[in-house]
């Protein structure tokens, strides 16, 4: 139940964050121009500093940028990929009646709600929402939103920090629940190496959340102190703001904030992708009717990624002048971490080889994930070198790189998971036709949006700039198909708006199918894992009788059995040829 709560809230936030981006894209395609039809209304809705006469102010653009990132990551993807799917699917897949700590789970959901409400209300306080980027770098984040026009506490930048504390607490409590449940409540016979890969990926994700979030929480506490108690954790001495020296002690370090932030920030991106890997794994195995290739390598890789993700963070900080020894260390670990990621992606590709592939909607999204994530991951390799990143840092190349991983990567995996497990949650299936109507424009638009950004970035277009890149010198020099780098913004923005429209069939399909979708049998996808042995939707306690596992999670096309799949709770029969057959005796 709580999984569904998280899911619906998270999807709503995702759509809200997406809408913020669609608003930003207007400014980039048509800088300084009034947004037609809804511009004035939005200007009234968001307050006087946002869109006077429908034209976006630079401060509002910055708020949109900061909040788009924050909302999509912490209010959208983490709740949906980790909390929603995890809470719903993991107990079912391990045969557990519930999570180990239901009250803590409830507390985690309410903390998430409070954090989300604080983040949303920050739009409506004087001065608007936080503007310092989702990374909230100091000293800007400490001096922003201060002065006569702002409330000393209820200003956007401070509220962002406070809301974050609630969100971090929510994730921590949830993660503790997940790890304990997976360790303690596995069904009889379900050993570690018989767990579905999805459970492994959630397990590692939970560890990342438990260990990586608290340093950011400590840094946020310090930044709140800097903003409200005038401390100087992150503020250097001698700062002059608006012509007047700041009355602070100084002696702090802006670089300290960056280290503490990215210590979470890097594991965070693995939190965003590992559940997606898990979802894709389940769907690929199911729809190619053969076991996942390389299960042991997948498990080993996901554990190595979890470990390495803690020692690569400074690759977000190449331009801070850390010195060559430190840089060499992080370049090495960053390149090393690409290896298990490639192993996982390769295992997925190889899993398809020789399979009986059927392309239902979850499979469409899952197979699209593979090349999209591939592009995202491979374009990260140049960024692992601080020499290349010297040029590419803070350009649109970076935006394209991480969006390829997160948008046609993780979000496609999330869509795949929704279409896949919807029958389990509701007992009905979503419409295949409208699912395809959702899929194809989304895939095409994703690429039209993000592919040109690589080129824009390589031409030097800076991110977080309000003018759409007009101020950059090569804006007018290079053309592709007759369009300059700046003019591509029009194409990108149009694709973004079309993609917004393409989500409408999904939303309608989702809600309509809850009541009117075609009723399905208990296991509509003929899948093998334990969640498909429970009734749909699962009752309180998840299972009618406690399941027992006798075999691995992907027993598709098992020789010696009828049918092309064998569920995990099927006892092993003597007739199954689980070993290689005896060789034919040689006739002398």
């Amino acid at each position, binding site marked *: 139940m709580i999984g569904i709560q998280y899911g619906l809230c998270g999807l709503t936030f995702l759509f809200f964050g997406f809408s913020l981006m669609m608003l930003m894209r207007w400014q980039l395609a048509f800088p300084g121009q009034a947004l037609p039809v809804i511009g004035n209304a939005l200007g009234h809705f968001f307050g006087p500093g946002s869109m006077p006469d429908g034209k976006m102010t630079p401060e509002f653009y910055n708020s949109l940028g900061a909040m788009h990132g924050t909302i999509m990551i912490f209010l959208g993807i983490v709740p949906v990929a980790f909390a929603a799917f995890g809470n719903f699917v993991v107990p079912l897949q391990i045969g557990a009646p519930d999570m*180990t*700590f239901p009250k803590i789970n409830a507390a985690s959901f309410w903390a998430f709600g409070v954090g989300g409400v604080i983040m949303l209300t920050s739009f409506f306080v004087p001065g608007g929402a936080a503007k310092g980027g989702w990374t909230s770098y100091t000293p800007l984040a400490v001096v922003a939103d201060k002065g006569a026009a702002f409330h000393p506490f209820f200003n956007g930048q401070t509220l962002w920090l406070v809301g974050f504390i609630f969100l971090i607490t929510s994730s921590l409590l949830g993660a503790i629940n997940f790890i304990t449940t997976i*360790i*303690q409540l596995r069904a009889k016979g379900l050993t570690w190496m018989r767990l579905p890969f999805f459970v492994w990926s959630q397990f590692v994700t939970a560890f990342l959340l*438990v*260990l990586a979030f608290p340093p*950011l929480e400590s840094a946020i506490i310090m930044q709140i102190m800097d903003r409200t108690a005038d401390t*100087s954790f992150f503020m250097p001495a001698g700062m002059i703001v608006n012509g007047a020296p700041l009355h602070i*002690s100084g002696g702090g370090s802006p670089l300290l904030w960056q280290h503490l932030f990215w210590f979470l920030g890097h594991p965070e991106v693995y939190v965003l992708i590992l559940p997606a890997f898990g979802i894709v794994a389940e769907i690929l195995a199911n729809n190619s009717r053969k076991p996942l290739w390389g299960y042991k390598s997948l498990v080993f890789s996901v554990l190595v990624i979890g470990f390495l993700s803690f020692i690569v963070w400074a690759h977000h900080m190449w331009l801070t002048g850390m010195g060559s020894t430190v840089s060499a260390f992080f370049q090495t670990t960053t390149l090393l971490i690409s290896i298990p990621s490639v192993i996982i992606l390769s295992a997925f590709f190889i899993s398809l080889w020789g399979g009986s592939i059927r392309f239902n909607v979850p499979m469409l999204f899952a197979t699209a994930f593979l090349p999209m994530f591939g592009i995202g991951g491979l374009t990260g390799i140049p960024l692992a070198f601080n020499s290349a990143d010297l040029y590419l840092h803070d350009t649109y190349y970076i935006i394209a790189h991480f969006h390829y991983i997160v948008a046609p990567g993780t979000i496609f995996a999330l869509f795949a998971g929704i279409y896949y497990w919807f029958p389990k949650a509701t007992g009905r299936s979503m419409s295949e036709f409208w699912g395809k109507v959702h899929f194809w424009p989304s895939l095409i638009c994703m690429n039209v949006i993000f592919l040109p950004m690589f080129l824009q970035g390589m031409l030097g277009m800076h991110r977080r700039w309000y003018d759409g890149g007009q101020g950059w010198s090569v804006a007018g020099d290079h053309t592709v198909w007759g369009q300059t780098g700046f003019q591509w913004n029009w194409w990108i923005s149009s694709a973004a708006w079309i993609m917004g429209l393409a989500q409408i069939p999904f939303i309608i399909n989702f809600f309509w199918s809850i009541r009117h979708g075609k009723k399905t049998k208990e296991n509509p996808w003929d899948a093998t894992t334990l969640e498909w042995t429970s009734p749909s939707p699962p009752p309180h306690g998840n299972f009618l009788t406690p399941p027992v596992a006798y075999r691995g999670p992907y027993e598709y096309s098992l020789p010696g059995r009828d049918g092309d799949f064998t569920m995990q709770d099927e006892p092993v029969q003597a007739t199954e040829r689980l070993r290689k057959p005896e060789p034919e005796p040689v006739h002398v």
Partner: protein
Amino acid sequence: MEIPYTVSTRPDTGLWNAKVGIWLFLASEVMLFGGLFSAYIFLRLDAEPGMWPHGLLNVPVGTMNTAILIASSVTVVLAWASLKMRRFSAYWWYMTITILCGVIFLVVKLAYEWPQKFDHFGAFIKKEALEKYEPYLGNHHLEEKGLPPRREISGHLHNHEAMHDPNVKEFEVALDPVNADPTNPANDRPHFFYRQPTDKIAKIEKEDVEYFSMFEPRHSAYFASYFTITGLHGLHVLGGVLVFIYFWLPVGSKLYKTNPEHLANRVEVVGLFWHFVDLVWIFVFPLFYLL
């Protein structure tokens, strides 16, 4: 279906659920305080010489607080053991002592140590004006000895209006012993015992002051870290005390009648948390009070 292994242990792991949960939570808390401690270490390593205060905290009081917390960790274990041995009144008395120790710790911190700081004033002198205030800083003497310079004049501020009123041009400070007699070799090193400000008054011109503040978080990176870490630690102490009170009152302890093992497990979980809180203090005390 009831959730298994809340009281009994799972055979292959040998653990009951809350034990796994509390250790994971403590791991996250280690990272939380670890972040704060790392910040403290980096800020101290990066500090300009003479700008990092020493010897400002009352060591005997801190030592007493440390002993109180360690004692409370012992008594909470005794409380848990009493529960396991099904001796309820022993459990109740040990919990009482534990709670009292926690409350004393908080009272000492919040009603004595912190307010004493908030009443104290410090002014960092601009580099150009250091010569002028040499009688209060004694930097020639320190330089001869190879010690880091003093940049701050501290003590009890007599004219508080000077902090806000631009018409008042100077601070009137009853000096701390270290500024009243800066060349005395006894003042070269920090003192363990707290010494009151003297009667010697110094007048410090505002234009010679780089930065002034009471001994609050804003005073320096040192006090910022001190108040933040001890504040967060204090919140954890308060949280622990509140949970202890819940298990000490009938509402929490009535579980003893129906499922004493479950209560013992719960007390064990809080006890583990309490040991962690104690451990953090054992790091805070040397780092801030002694070094």
